[in-house]
């Protein structure tokens, strides 16, 4: 009888135990389900993190919960996003604990449970007064083994201790959260990229509009120019500036570098040069002053190469100043080749460089071909550059065509040279012909 009672009693005890385990499991599952449902309904990273924090405070019955996310862009600054919520009184996490926890987690990447923080030898906290944080569970947020953040709950309410069941529950929440947070982060990154791409397209449009919309129409001369940036925006620059009825200026430049930084500098160069040219001063003086202005506004590692010319339409004289640019090619009617070198050092390097200018007379049939190194340094798959020799040979063949046709034929010849290789540098041509 007594034995039966004992057996029954044991069974009841076992059943009760099973029952309470089941209860916990059901409770855990419903917590997980609730969190999963909540966080899958939003995509904003901040909302997701806030939800996780809120739910953890509620279901784990804690005073505080915090999520710290690793900043991928800057490994040295470790954790950047910190969303923390406190249930009752607002208690601040001591800074040292923050950094010690993250340091520990970066090393160990596993759950951590502490019920007596004050006496925990791993965390040497040295703050005065009563220790505000007594207990904690911290779990890593892992994506493919990489730590992307930390989820931590602080101070079990009613002075109770954290259990290993709670540690396990928080670990599961952590692993689910990691996936959702990473997805949200990728989504946000992509959104940012799309915005950036749109901005770049707008910048490209603005830059295109900076280049002259129309070619000069002048009796006895033909002008043509073309600019093909390697990226959306570029650092090559050409311009035609009508000074007055008798004078037309033109220029062709190459800003060091590529892409947006080069494009910004190119816009600065254009504004500077245009304002100087319009004063109708000698070519070399306009370049000298532009050099000084550029020197004052750009850093030492940046520079510009620029060829500037001013044509006197009444005398057909060209005055030019070559500031470190690839020598333009002048081909006369009889096939004689000259290079326009006179000028000075690249712009933006030495503030008071004495630029000089050269002078030539345009005769009927003369062809002036200015270009950027995107042409001559265009490379094929064997790393062979298109080169100046080839360019001059080709020009001698096509020189009797119109400027536009010459441009097309040269570009075609470069394309034939590089074949399927991508265009690496901006390409710009400026062609003038005297009839």
């Amino acid at each position, binding site marked *: 009888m007594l034995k039966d009672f004992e057996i029954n009693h044991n069974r009841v005890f076992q059943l009760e135990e099973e029952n309470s385990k089941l209860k916990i499991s059901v409770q855990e599952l419903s917590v997980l389900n609730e969190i999963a449902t909540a966080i899958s309904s939003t995509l904003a990273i901040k909302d997701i993190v806030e939800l996780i924090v809120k739910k953890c405070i509620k279901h784990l019955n804690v005073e505080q919960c915090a999520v710290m996310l690793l900043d991928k862009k800057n490994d040295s600054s470790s954790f950047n996003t910190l969303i923390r919520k406190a249930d009752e009184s607002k208690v601040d996490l001591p800074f040292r604990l923050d950094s010690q926890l993250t340091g520990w987690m970066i090393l160990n990447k596993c759950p951590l449970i502490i019920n007596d923080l004050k006496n925990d030898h791993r965390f040497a906290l040295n703050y005065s007064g009563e220790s505000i944080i007594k207990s904690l569970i911290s779990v890593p947020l892992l994506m493919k083994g990489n730590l992307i953040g930390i989820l931590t709950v602080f101070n079990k309410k009613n002075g109770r201790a954290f259990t290993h069941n709670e540690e396990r529950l928080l670990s599961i929440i952590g692993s689910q959260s990691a996936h959702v947070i990473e997805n949200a982060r990728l989504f946000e990154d992509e959104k940012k990229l799309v915005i950036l791409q749109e901005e770049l397209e707008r910048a490209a449009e603005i830059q295109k509009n900076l280049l002259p919309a129309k070619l000069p129409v002048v009796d006895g001369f033909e002008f043509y120019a073309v600019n093909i940036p390697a990226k959306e925006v570029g650092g090559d620059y050409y311009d035609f500036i009508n000074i007055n009825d008798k004078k037309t200026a033109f220029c062709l430049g190459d800003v060091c*570098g590529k892409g947006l930084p080069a494009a910004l500098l190119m816009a600065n160069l254009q504004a500077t040069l245009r304002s100087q040219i319009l004063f109708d001063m000698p070519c070399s003086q306009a370049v000298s002053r532009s050099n000084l202005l550029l020197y004052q506004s750009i850093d030492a590692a940046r520079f510009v190469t620029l060829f500037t010319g001013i044509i006197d339409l009444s005398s057909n004289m060209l005055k030019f100043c070559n500031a470190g640019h690839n020598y333009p090619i002048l081909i006369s009617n009889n096939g004689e080749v000259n290079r326009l070198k006179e000028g000075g050092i690249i712009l933006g390097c030495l503030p008071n460089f004495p630029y000089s200018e050269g002078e030539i007379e345009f005769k009927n049939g003369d062809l002036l071909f200015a270009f950027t190194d995107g042409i001559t340094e265009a490379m094929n798959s064997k790393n062979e550059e298109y080169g100046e020799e080839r360019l001059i040979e080709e020009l001698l063949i096509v020189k009797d065509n119109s400027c536009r046709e010459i441009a097309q034929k040269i570009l075609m010849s470069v394309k034939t040279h590089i074949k399927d290789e991508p265009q690496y540098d901006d390409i710009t041509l400026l062609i003038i012909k005297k009839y």
Partner: protein
Amino acid sequence: MKINVVEKYTAAIIELKGDIIGGPHNEEFSNTLRKLISDQKKNIVIDLAETKYMNSSGLGMLISGYTTVKNSGGDLKLANVTKKIESLLVITKLSSIFENYSTVEEAVKSFS
């Protein structure tokens, strides 16, 4: 690009090996220069014997280095410039500021 510093007599020789394309190397190069300057080693030779290619950013790096050294009261000279880079210096007219020697020894001697 690899940077190696050797000292000879009264000059510091910075050997630049590989392609000089600026970018991430800029900082390493300017740190090297700053260290030499703070150690009062202001006679500097850039040895380009093992540099075949230099783009505009690489050139910018050299110019910025030249400015740094000049501003500290020192001088920066080039040695063993390859033909290709020499023509780049001629076109950009940087040859008017960069003294250029065919050997490191000649460049070092020019300081005395």
